[in-house]
């Protein structure tokens, strides 16, 4: 946002770079989400 791109290379470098950072956030978020969903599974085991 607010960036000026003069070549396709500039654009790809910016957007792909942003996606690489985003992927790190996504991996950690999905891991956290999974741990949240399954966090209380053990409480409901039928002994």
């Amino acid at each position: 946002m607010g960036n000026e791109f003069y070549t396709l290379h500039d654009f790809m470098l910016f957007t792909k770079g942003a996606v690489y950072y985003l992927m790190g956030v996504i991996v950690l978020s999905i891991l956290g989400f999974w741990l949240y969903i399954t966090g209380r599974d053990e409480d409901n085991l039928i002994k």
Partner: protein
Amino acid sequence: MSTLKTENLKQYLTPFNIVVGIILLLGGFVTILRFTKGLGAVTNLTDNYPWGLWISFDLLCGVALAAGGYTTSAACYVFGLKRFHSAVRPAILTAFLGYALVVFALHYDVGRPWRLPYPFFVQSGPTSVLFEVGLCVFLYLITLFIEWVPSALEWLGIRKPRDIIVKATLALTIFGVVLSTMHQSSLGALFLIAPSKMHPLWYSSYIPLFFFVSSIAAGLSMVIFESTLSHHFMHDKMDETYLKEHDGVTYGFAKGAAMVLVLYFFIKVVGITLDNNWSYLLTGYGAWFLVELLGFVALPAFLYAIAVREKNLTLIRWTAALTVLGIVLNRFNVSLVAFNWHLPPEMRYFPRWHEFVISIFVVTVGLLVFRFIASRMPIFYEHPEFKEHEPRDLEEHELKPHPQTWGH
């Protein structure tokens, strides 16, 4: 004698029957109009909008919401999650009827419906995405029919062909999953041809992936939604196995749907990032996009997560309804709202009342056929003469069942 007749009449004049009767009458009237006067007499379709409500709702939503068939059978037979076995038949029936109604509704939408088989038998166009969609739907409908047939054969007491088909279940499931993977994504790929007509927030080169991933969430949620309604209205048709496994199916599918929705949310964000479309979020279309993304993707994902964590079946069921609504909204947004977004308001498409009537008519026909089949054939129970799947005791890792339905 006349008192007996009045009583008989009163027995049939239930609110449900009256409403259904009116819908069928109206549907019949519009059907006659459509096939005698043509598309122009009953639709607002134009050259700018050759696809309207019938494609958006009956086809795009119909196919997405019928995804429960391949997700459930893949979970049970491909991934070996046998605890979902009792959900397979209702899901297959819903999917079969869903696809059958897609093809039924397509007869209204195409100009010359008698030419529907042409692309396969007369003049194929294998380089077209639409050809791929058509071929997959054609083959998958046949596959679903074969998968559904054992229920009908059990009902009729015909054993030999039923046993042959049951032996082919795994092959049919794999074939069905492959076909679904292809056409669920290809429905999104249809819009790749119109990047200049689509709003940038909804257009992405990843749109086939968006359609495919969202169809999994739609399928899982639809199974929960449909089983909730079935539980409410057809409880007496369910056997012990179905009732015993039902809550486990709901929790399992809710957990799966939560994960898929989160994944879908993130790949949508990746789509915006890759095209650098962030600035559009500050516009009116951006606000609507955020309503869809936050209200109907992120919110259901978190509600599912909370419901699974708190073991709240009621919340799971309402969240399933919200997710189904969200997928319908997404398909409408892609095919109607974001499509031709640059056109002036007076040139935008809004369906005629005839189009709404036919869409409601198609859903009603589906509902009636579902009720007819499910109340007669072994869908929610195993036929005593064809029992293969014994009710299992809940294993250690499984969740305790919970007696709630819609909060009462």
